[in-house]
């Protein structure tokens, strides 16, 4: 089977400094991969790079999505191919309402197919799934939202825009157990409806993986994947922490 997302020998620089050192990762249609690691290990760099953040330069290697090399595509072009990034720190855009933003994004991705009325109905449905009050539709994007509200809003956007592949950058950080469960349920619901969906789930903690079951788990240390395995790897990390992998890498160098 051809990989949905294929990353080959990816080297990334920011301001001339190399952050990722030759990452290889292949995710098939329908698979869920977890990417774990400490803060500063390069997980977010990979997430942002995949979505086309202009500050991250590919100095070597290749990213292929659905058969297309996307190294040089702008982020909106990547979105049109079906990529989606759930941000670790979603930004606020004062003066732009959630509904108008999603409607414009929806139009950019899918054209004028949905009438305003249908769109609203759909939006409310998805909001109900996430227990987001309908009033949020007319609030400004992430403006004054709590941490948990922002995270749920990212999942709402995913559910509305219906991507083929999602990178979720710490969708669990800062959430209490109830919110975590809501977010996980919504991810699962979306996944069930779209079995072809590929997911790269970036997280520190094993906890969310109890709900969103990964096919594979990868561990990032110092800008590269140092260990890959099945779901049991996450449990092992939960028990042993990351130190043994970090030390092993130091020895290797």
């Amino acid at each position, binding site marked *: 089977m051809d990989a949905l997302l294929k990353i080959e020998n990816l080297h990334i620089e920011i301001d001339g400094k190399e952050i990722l050192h030759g990452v290889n990762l292949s995710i098939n249609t329908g698979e869920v991969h977890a990417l774990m690691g400490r803060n500063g290990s390069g997980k977010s760099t990979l997430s942002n790079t995949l979505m*086309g*953040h202009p*500050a991250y330069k590919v100095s070597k290697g290749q990213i292929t999505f659905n058969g297309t090399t996307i190294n040089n595509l702008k*982020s*909106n072009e*990547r979105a049109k191919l079906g990529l989606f990034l759930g941000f670790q720190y979603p*930004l606020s855009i004062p*003066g732009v309402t959630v509904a108008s933003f999603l409607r414009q994004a929806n139009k*950019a991705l899918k054209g004028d197919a949905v009438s305003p009325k249908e769109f609203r109905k759909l939006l409310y449905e998805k909001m109900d799934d996430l227990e987001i009050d309908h009033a949020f539709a007319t609030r400004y994007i992430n403006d004054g939202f709590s941490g948990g509200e922002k995270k749920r809003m990212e999942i709402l*956007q995913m559910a509305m825009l219906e991507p083929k592949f999602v990178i979720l950058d710490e969708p669990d950080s800062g959430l209490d157990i109830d919110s975590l469960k809501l977010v996980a349920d919504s991810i699962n619901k979306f996944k069930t409806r779209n079995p072809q969906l590929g997911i790269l789930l970036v997280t520190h903690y094993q906890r969310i993986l109890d709900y969103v079951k990964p096919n594979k788990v990868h561990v990032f240390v110092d800008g590269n994947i140092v260990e890959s395995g099945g779901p049991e790897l996450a449990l092992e990390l939960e028990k042993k922490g990351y130190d043994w992998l970090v030390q092993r890498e130091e020895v290797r160098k």
Partner: protein
Amino acid sequence: MATELNNDYKYGFHDSEENYTFKSGRGLTREIVLSISKMKNEPQWMTDFRLKSLEIFYKKPMPKWGNTKLLNEIDFENIFYYVKSTEKQEKSWEDVPKEIKNTFDRLGIPEAERKFLAGVSAQYESEVIYHSLREDLKKLGVIFLDMDSGLREHPEIVKKYFATIIPSEDNKFAALNSAVWSGGSFIYVPPHTNVEIPLQAYFRINTENMGQFERTLIIADEGSSVHYIEGCTAPTYSSDSLHSAVVELIALKGAKIRYTTIQNWSKNVYNLVTKRAVAHENAVVEWLDGNMGSKLTMKYPSIYLVGEHAHGEVVSVALASGSDQHQDAGAKIIHAAPNTTSVITSKSISRNGGRASYRGLLKVHKGATNVKSTIKCDALMLDERSRSDTYPTMEIDEKGVQIEHEATVSKIEDEKLFYLMSRGISEEQAKLMIVNGFMEVFVKELPMEYAVELNRLIELEMEGSIG
């Protein structure tokens, strides 16, 4: 669009002389002022007022602040101070520059309105709406006239309030306006009367209204309310290089006045306007002031809160676009009574080398206890060549006042663009979303048709701003 507006003369957009019934000579003399007053058959007190104002104008120096370089380039000797046009069309639609026509087109401005805005038609042809509106207002006892007719038909009200808020001595341009004023609106709302629909100059628009030296006086009597809208989002084409209006608002006890302006003069125009309001006990005055056009605008809508529990609010937005444009806008609030409150919100966008300044005054007089005021100034700069400055002044002569002041200068951050673009939105559209969002505080207060037009105008201005 900017460059076309700048070079309007190359389109040969002139009026032909014979179309005017009266035209004063260039420059400003006592004789000209006298003849203006005589032409209008004014009462002696107004003639005297004009002449006295002229003396003040001669004596007053130019403001020593603001954009003094541009101010000193004004040649007062080279201006026609009074032009009364005939009612006939003076210009041909064919003469209107293509770019202006295109802008009208894209803004969706109705045909009749376009012709008026381009100076082709002397009268905005909305007679039907106008008449029914007039009937409704008449029943309520509301007076809505041009200022010249106001003086003729209601001399007692005009005499009581005219120039009481902005005396000729206030500044050189107020003195100039006082000497040569013509046109503008006169509104009187009787006690406890609410004018439900916004009064728009559109409805009684004629060439007089759009004059260089218009004079507007609005009196809201006790417990009444009125919303007045002047200007329009479409570029207002003017061959006059100096526009110097005076606007006075009087909100009596418990009255509410909202005054909305969208100014989009062509880029050859100096827009030097004095706007001031007085709010009596429990009264509310709101200035919504949007500045899109002109070469140099200097305008600081003011509110004197003279009665207890009066509230004043100014929302001032400016778009400075291109190195030939300076928007020097802001607000002044004077708390002269206890328990008064005020809010100033200033939003400016500068791009393409444009300069936007906020200039504000907050004054609290001694004895004005328990005053609350919030001032928020946000500037958005779209490129490195543009400029934004803030000149806030506070004079607080009373203790225990509660003042919040916040100022921000921002750029369109790459992170925000990335966020929006990651959802499929193009870079151009993402920038526009951020800019429109920035202006939302102003736009959301506008009647729907204005809001739509303004958003489209911003879109037009922003076009091609992606490097």
